[in-house]
Each structure stands twice: as C-alpha cells, then as structure tokens.
C-alpha cells in the first residue's frame, strides 16, 4: 500500500485531469471514478441522472424564458454551431396556418427573421401567433396541425 501511495501523489496534476475530462467529453460519459487506498479522482458531468433527451433540452438556457409569450430559441449547441430550435412558449395545440384554407406560415427552406410569425399555438380558445425569435432558415418542422405541444417543445429546426 505505502508504495502505491508514494508513487501516485499526483491527483492534483492538472494535465492528467484535463486528459480525463477530454475522455469524458469525447466519449460522452457521465462519470470517471478512480481511487486507490488513499487517493481518488472523480469526474462527473450532468447533475441529474436518468437524463432523457428531453431533460437535456430542459437544461438549456432558453428555458428561463419558458413563461414568456414569445417563442423560446435554444442557444446553438456545442456539437453543431449552425443549428437552432424554435420551441413552444406555452401549452396548447399547434397550427401551421391561420385558417384551414390558408397556406402554412412557413415551410422547410423558408428564411425567417426574428419577428416572422412561424405558427399559431391555440390555448384556451385563443390563437397565439408565435414569432421565430431568431433569424435563420427552416430545415425541419417537428409537429403537425393539431398536435398538442407543451412548454419548450421543439417546433422548428433552423439553420443559422
């Protein structure tokens, strides 16, 4: 035991810790936990276990705007700097168009500005026009007319 202790006196060695963290990140791990009789290095990510993809989304800064009446836009994420999401600011029913006989406000390929209305969310008999809140190009629509949406539900994927 004593030998071991003397050998690895370097739990505080930054270079190694950096390497470990890089591994954690590179392989998308939650935890690395190393110990011997007297020493321990433990590196964790993500306070909340049982994390679902949804939850991850929930942790994004955007949610602070959850109760706002304008759409919430997720900060461009680490892995893909050119993507953003338009999320529902409220619980309700999604509608892509103002009236059944009207065309959709936006479709894939359209370029939107922050004040472009992208859809309607109906809640308590009220039709709330949802602005994009960010500039970009619609690359994907996640919901269909009449779908139930809740707070921070991703509605559109944008290339920004």
């Amino acid at each position: 035991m004593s030998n071991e202790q003397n050998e690895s006196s370097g739990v505080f060695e930054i270079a190694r810790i950096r390497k470990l963290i890089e591994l954690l990140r590179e392989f998308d791990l939650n935890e690395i936990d190393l110990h011997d009789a007297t020493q321990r290095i433990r590196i964790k990510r993500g306070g909340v276990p049982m994390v679902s993809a949804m939850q991850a989304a929930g942790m994004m800064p955007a949610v602070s705007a959850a109760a706002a009446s304008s759409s919430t836009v997720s900060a461009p994420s680490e892995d893909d700097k050119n993507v953003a999401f338009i999320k529902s600011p409220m619980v309700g029913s999604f509608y892509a168009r103002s009236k059944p006989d009207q065309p959709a406000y936006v479709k894939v390929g359209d370029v939107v500005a922050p004040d472009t209305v992208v859809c309607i969310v109906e809640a308590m008999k009220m039709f709330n026009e949802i602005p994009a809140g960010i500039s970009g190009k619609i690359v994907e629509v996640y919901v269909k007319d009449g779908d139930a949406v809740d707070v921070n539900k991703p509605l559109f994927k944008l290339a920004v």
Partner: protein
Amino acid sequence: MYNRILIANRGEIALRIIRACREMGIETVAIYSEGDRGSKYLEFADETFCVGGFKSADSYLRIDQIISAAEVGNVEAVHPGYGFLSENAHFNEVCRDCNIDFIGPTPQAMLMLGDKNQARALARKAKVPVVPGSDGLIEDEAAAMKVAHEIGFPVLVKATAGGGGRGMRVAANDLSLKTALQQAAAEALAAFGNAGVYIEKFVEHPRHVEVQMIADHHGNIVHLFERDCSTQRRHQKLIEESPSPSIPKNVRKSLCEAAVRLIQMANYTNAGTVEFIVDRDNNFYFIEVNARIQVEHPVTEMVTGIDLIQQQIRVAAGEKLPFRQKDIECKGSAIECRINAEDPAKNFQPSPGRIDSIFVPGGLGVRFDSHVHAGYTVPPYYDSMIGKLIVHQPTRAGAIRCMLRALSELKISGIKTTADFHRKVLSHVDFAEGRIDTGWVERNLMGKN
C-alpha cells in the same frame, strides 16, 4: 366516473393521486416544470405536459398553462393535491367555467372558509368553540388594546390572510402588543398582500388535533376521526398520528361531532380537515378548515382502511359515499414522519441534491409514500419533503417501535434528511406518554442536534 384526470401538482402527492387513479382505471395527465422534467413518477402517468419553468410561479402556479394542458389533454377533472393551487378559489372557478370538475369543495365554500373571520363566525353559528378574540379585523391600536384587556394577555396577533405561522405574533402586555400589531401587519402585507390582522387569546402549550371529514353531494357527511399533529417545528408539522394519544374519549367524541356540525353548516363537500387546538384542560377551539387533502391523510387511511384520494374522486364525480358514520372504525395506531431534505444540524436548512443511494424500509405495517429513488435529484425549487414514512400497528407502543425500526432502515446518502431527528422525538419519553404540544420541539430539541 371520470375517464381522465389532470393532476395539478408534483412529487409524492402527484404519485399518490396517479396510484389512486390507476387502481380505479382512470387515465392520468401529469404536469411538470423544467425542475421536474424527467422525474421517474411522471412515467406512471398516461400523458404529461411541461407547463413552464423551474420556479413554481412559472409552472405549478400558472393557471393558464395548466388549464390549457387540461383542455389539450382532454380531461374531465383536475385534482389539485395540497399546496400550490389547491386552495385557490379562482383556479377552482376557472376549472368549472371550462367544464372541468375541480376535485374539492365549491369555490364558495373555499372562499368562506378561507377567510378566518367568516370561518370563525360560521363556527359560532355551528356551536363550535372558537378561541376568544376580536370578532373581525382590528381597526386600530386602541381597539386592539380593548380586546386584549377583555380576553386577557397573552394574546396572539394573526393575519387574516395568514398561514404557516407567517403574520403571527404573541403579545404579553400593552407594549409588546403595539410592536406585534405593526410587525404582523407588515409581514402579512408582504406575504399575502393583505395587512388585515385580528387578535385572539393565546393558548399556552396547545396540542394540534384535527378531524378528517368527507362529504358527498347527497347530504352525507362522515368524519374519519382525528389526527394529532402536535409535533411541530415553527408551525410546520413533523409527525402526525391517529388516534390522538392525549385526548379523553368524551373529548374526542365532541371534537368529531363539532367538526361535523361545522362542515354541515358550511355546505362543504369532498374531503376537508377541521383543525382545533386543545389546551391543557382539554378544552378545544376551532382554528381553521383546510379545504383540500392534507399531507398527513395516510395516517387516517391506515386506521380506517379508507382510500381518501379515491373517495375524493368518487365524490367529485357525484357518487354517494359508500359508507355511513357507523361503518367507520379506527383500528390500531398509525404514525407518519415527514422525511424532508433538510439538515437538522444546520437549523433544518434545505439540502437539495442527488440521492446517491437509498434503502427503502419495508415489512409488516410499513408504508413509504415517496417519488424518490437512488439517482433522483431533489430540486431546490420546491418543498423539501421527499417522502412520508407511515406505520400502522395494533398498539401505539408497537407503532412507535415499528417507526423507530423503519427510520433506522431508511438510509439515504447524497443529501441530508430529517430521519434521524424523528428518531430523537420518537424515542423521547414525552412522545411515548403523549405529552407533546406544538412548542415541545423548540423547547426540547432545538439547538441540541
């Protein structure tokens, strides 16, 4: 009977209601905040909606979002649980306006009983003893003095809109009464936006005894006996039990009968609790009605064998109570300890965080109502209660031994809890002999952890 119910709450009571619904074959719609996103108990609901951000004000108190979820989720009724919007008459009314049943009393009964002065007046009418005091709000200092001298010091200054001890002050003489009036009014204004205060006789060393009531829409009113909630810290209940260990048979009888009279007088329906304080001579005084299910309802379920949440739902759906007063028996003794994520060593400061490991007590007569599990993170945004440990045994002595055993098994690592603190209380001779009053914990255990 309903096909689908929305649960406007979180945590253990949301899970409690989901369980009742599943056993009744009713689908559930759960709501959650960003702070509870991904919580395990939500998987037990049939549909879930995120209603907003981490703070209660942005989510569990957002009437608009919750009603939207109820409409989109296509439910027929809403169960409010306790806390949050459970005693909000406006929410109650909005639900009904949207043709969604509110599982609880009518908004009218809620409003009337929610106002302490109206409630007192009603109690008088029902011949239910109330603590002597000012009838209605105090206009000015002079009026306060007059009342205080009539009923005699010490007196209690209380906010008409108050609760949980906020906006409450004790005064032992003219001088302290002056300050008490100002402080209580200021605190009440800040906390409830209502500075109205009233005065009542301060009962020393009171015990807190409450009666569980349930009434249907067909004129049937039944009491399910009493709960003793005298073990409190700063007016927060820590331990509840049924039956009460300290009141004589005859007092118990008149206590329950008084509760029935009051509920009848109020045209109250669904489940509710009539709270009393009992002084050292076993005189009891009406305090207030909690117009909702309570945290401590399980102890009543254990001794009566009646599922209170299921009965709430049946009553709201218009069914008749399936039992009469004579059918209700109080069997054995039940005790509940509230397990809070708090650090008793640090004056009970909240201890949110990740539960690394938990061992859940089991065995004969042990019930643990909780939504937590190893790996669950207790969010810092809400109430610190993470579970309720309940035991039921033929005798009270047996229940105490069983609770001590169960508490010693409840090993939680990662956060601090009140489990060990409960062991101190339960192993104390005063608890064994039923000598606990609402000030006992402060006098005997505080600053001694």
